[in-house]
């Protein structure tokens, strides 16, 4: 049901897309990894080709195998964690808060 590795020339995933996607999901990848990922992702997607071309018009998507609706909680306060327990696992803490480097991307310095 699943064919052999496909022609890289027809790879549906380009290097550029791989780099774009890596940016979205916050992964640093080098050239070698990008090339390898492009090939591997292309291979998986080409195996899904038959699926992608299947006619599913009029078919509702299944987000979930369960028929449940309206699962609700009453608005009652439950005990929170102690601040110490919350912060004890953190890589960096200051004044009861989680400390992180500047949230904006630093532009690389001009040479």
């Amino acid at each position, binding site marked *: 049901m699943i064919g052999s590795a496909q022609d890289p020339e027809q790879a549906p995933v380009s290097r550029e897309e791989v780099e774009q996607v890596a940016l979205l999901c916050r992964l640093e990848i080098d050239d070698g990894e990008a090339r390898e990922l492009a090939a591997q992702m292309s291979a998986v997607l080409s195996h899904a080709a038959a699926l992608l071309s299947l006619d599913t018009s009029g078919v509702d998507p299944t987000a979930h195998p369960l028929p449940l609706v309206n699962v609700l909680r009453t608005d009652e306060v*439950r005990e*929170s964690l102690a*601040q110490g327990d919350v912060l004890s696992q953190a890589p960096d803490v200051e004044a009861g808060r989680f400390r*992180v480097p500047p949230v904006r991307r630093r532009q690389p310095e001009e040479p």
Partner: protein
Amino acid sequence: MSAYGSERQRRREGGARDYEGFECVVGLEVHCELLTATKLFCGCKNAFGDEPNTNTCPVCLGLPGSLPVLNGHAVELAMRIGLALNCTVQPSIFHRKNYFYPDMPKDYQISQYDIPINTDGYLDLPSGARVGIVRAHIEEDTGKTTHSGGGGRIHDAMYSLVDYNRAGVPLVEIVSEPDIRSGEQAREYVSELRAVLVAVGASDGRMEEGSLRVDANVSVRRPGEPFGTRCEIKNLNSLRSLGRAVDYETRRQVDLLVSGGAVAQETRHWDEQAGHTVVMRSKEEAEDYRYFPEPDLVPLAPDAAWQERISRAMAPLPAGRRRALLDSVGAEGPAMVERVATVVAQDLDGYVMAAVDAGAPGALALSRAANELAAACAEDASLLDALEPGHFASLVAMEARGDLTATQAKAVLAEMLTSGEPPEAIASRKGFEALDPGSLRRAVEEVVAANSAEWERYKEGEAKMAQFFVGQVMKATRQKADGKAVMALLADLLRGSAGAP
């Protein structure tokens, strides 16, 4: 800069202002923190101002393995908002909005996307304009990031600190149609929306604490033309900021277009101190949120019975209260509409209704409520606690009968607010009893006689002398005289002396 903020010639037409032949087009996104005891998906307290990271648990910290469970009361409040905004309340689902930011514990926000709980409603403003509501959906709030070093500004910060107490607090985001046409109308919309949210018990309405947060989408066009490119303005923490930011942004865009430039689609930050907007990010930097249905939650399907129950339990809304008040006082015209709006906004309509029910004239009751009570309320809302509607009704009736002059009525009312006593007791203690017409006429004649020089000037047409005589008569009658009656007698005497040979 300041030229942008200055008031220009304005055309009052459905709130639209003319900016050199352009009109501004505004759509607002209002985030309302819901007044629940707990967060949207966990039992942590929904509270403002607590020690950082004390109202947090595995769920709202996004710890591995934790799962969200939806707060039923938050859903109910969202439905109240939908019903109050004339929306269709429909079955809905939750999505994940994926993007990285340190104040978002899971690095996705659980929100409603293409199938929100409330769609397609409207809000009627006191001025008569109708603003369409695209949707009002449920989502979770983020934590709070404080930027340290570099003067606390995000761009220059050395590092940032994150508090997750607010993470997971329930929000309803209310998205308007681009039906708003001026900064002033934007303020009117948010002010009315806030009144509605408070009335249905969904919000405490505190903009300064971030309970209500507004983003504005602003574009400009020549009337009748298609919409222009819009900019989204963030950081609007007060009605004042909102009005100023919309006006500023409109001017900025009009000036760009007039000078041959073009508006770029971008997100801009309102700097309240500097009084201008600065660019935050351009369209090219826009995130790809990779929405997909939240697999950890199941659909919401509010049935008709549930909606019916909520709708029955809902308090009357400001617009309905204004209509009812207007009907009951039987008043018309813009001044009355404004008084009615003030009275309802301050929650004083109950007093006016009580006076009208007791047979007092509505216009007078409205006037006392819109002026004296509203002023007292603005000073200290707790002053109203002592005032019984029945006492207010008696006071208005006494004034209407002429038992008290306007001045006396105001004095009695002021004391009623502090002591809670009935007006009759206060009036008699103060020795306020009405002058009979004969004594008043005598008092006026004596004052005129004793001030002949002033009377001559009054006769010569010096109108301001009327105030002098009213003051003198008040003094002579120890404030018992009615100012209007004195004016009428003065006019009478004037006619009599002019007609004399």
